[in-house]
């Protein structure tokens, strides 16, 4: 991947190249992009069928249902994050490259968010309408997902990095990552619920932003450490 003559690539350039590569790979396999979105939609459909179609009840739980569905959909797409790179050996090349692994990982996570978290966020208002989410909660839902789904991708990548190459990776990843998702879920639904009853949401959003900032700084390092361990298995 890196030959001696272009080993002085600037970090920013490396970031963009990795990001573009992952986005292009995702674009070539468009069908894979649809499945998490369909999953997201279906979970939200199952809920009224399983519990109650009563609009009053649904509008109360809408925030939680959309958030849980988004969380599970992100988790579903998580175990493919490093898998194909691991299978075809490009992950090992990344580990061997002179560029910092955490940066490459961060670019990959950004790409993953753009193809999973961002579409989920854009689709969320549709689910909100289906679940009778109050009008004033709608913008809070989108903003909280916009701040929360990158965190989900970052945390999920830690699990993906630790389990890549393991036989039972998929199930294990949810076991490792779901407990770590809980704070994001609590503050995410808290934002929407507060907005739905007309309370200020700045505090919630500030905490979610803080968690995201912490994740951006620390998660790539943990993922890089996890990948080095997994690849040496």
């Amino acid at each position, binding site marked *: 991947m890196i030959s001696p003559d272009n080993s002085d690539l600037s970090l920013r350039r490396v970031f963009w190249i990795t990001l573009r590569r992952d986005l292009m790979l995702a674009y070539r396999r468009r069908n894979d992009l649809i499945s998490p979105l369909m999953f997201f939609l279906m979970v939200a459909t199952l809920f009224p069928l399983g519990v109650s179609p009563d609009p009053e009840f649904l509008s109360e739980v809408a925030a939680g249902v959309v958030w849980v569905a988004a969380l599970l959909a992100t988790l579903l797409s998580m175990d493919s994050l490093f898998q194909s790179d691991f299978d075809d050996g490009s992950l090992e090349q990344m580990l061997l490259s002179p560029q910092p692994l955490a940066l490459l990982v961060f670019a990959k996570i950004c790409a993953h968010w753009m193809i999973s978290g961002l579409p989920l966020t854009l689709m969320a208002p549709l689910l909100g309408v289906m679940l009778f989410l109050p009008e004033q909660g709608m913008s809070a839902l989108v903003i909280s997902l916009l701040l929360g789904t990158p965190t989900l991708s970052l945390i999920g990548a*830690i699990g993906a990095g*630790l*389990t890549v190459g*393991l036989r*039972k990776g998929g199930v*294990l990843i949810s*076991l*490792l990552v*779901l*407990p*770590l998702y*809980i*704070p994001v879920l609590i503050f995410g639904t808290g934002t929407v619920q507060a907005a739905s009853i007309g309370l200020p949401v700045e505090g919630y959003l500030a905490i979610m932003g803080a968690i995201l900032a*912490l994740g951006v700084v620390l998660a790539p390092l*943990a993922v890089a*450490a*996890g990948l080095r*361990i*997994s690849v*040496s*298995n």
Partner: protein
Amino acid sequence: MGKLLPGFAVVALLMLITGLVWGLAIAPADYQQGNSFRIIYIHVPAAILAQSCYLLMAVAGLVSLVWKMKVADMVGKSCAPIGATLALLALATGAIWGKPTWGTWWVWDARLTAMLILLFLYIGVYTLHSTIDNELNAGKAGAVLSLVGVVNIPIIKYSVEWWNTLHQGSTFSVTEAPKMAPEMWMPLLVMVIGFYCFFAVILMLRTRTEILEREKRTGWVKELVEAN
């Protein structure tokens, strides 16, 4: 026999017996909760230990990642099942205590939930250890995961203030004067110290087994086995 093991074992035994008899039989009954409050002498030490154990696991993980110490690795691995048991014990005694006092086995209160998350984190680390076949890599992966999960410890600590719900505030603190009556608080202190010593004993036994297991192909283990 190790050097520290008998000491800790004797102290743990004495402390636990003293604390239990004192707490369950001698300490006065609570004026509101009657005798049901006495489960505190198991519940609080288990809950404190469950959190301390995670911290120890994370510190051991850090040591094993930074200084590549094999023993730290083994301590980290031994912590996971002990911590999971303690968290489960804290949850179970909490549920039993909650029924007569709050009228319910379980509430979705921040602290209870945080303890449940702690249990999940322990199970995650334990499962990761047992899924990865290569012992060295399993140790490192577990260390990374426990360091990531250590973010959860402050959330447990501060969740009472953050979400402020049904659970009472902490009754036990080393730095502040106790809010409980001294005749109730003293046996609790004895129990907590007893639990710590007991934990040390179990941890040493597990780590020792782990060392023997990993070094089973070396000469000194074979000599040891043949000698006994």
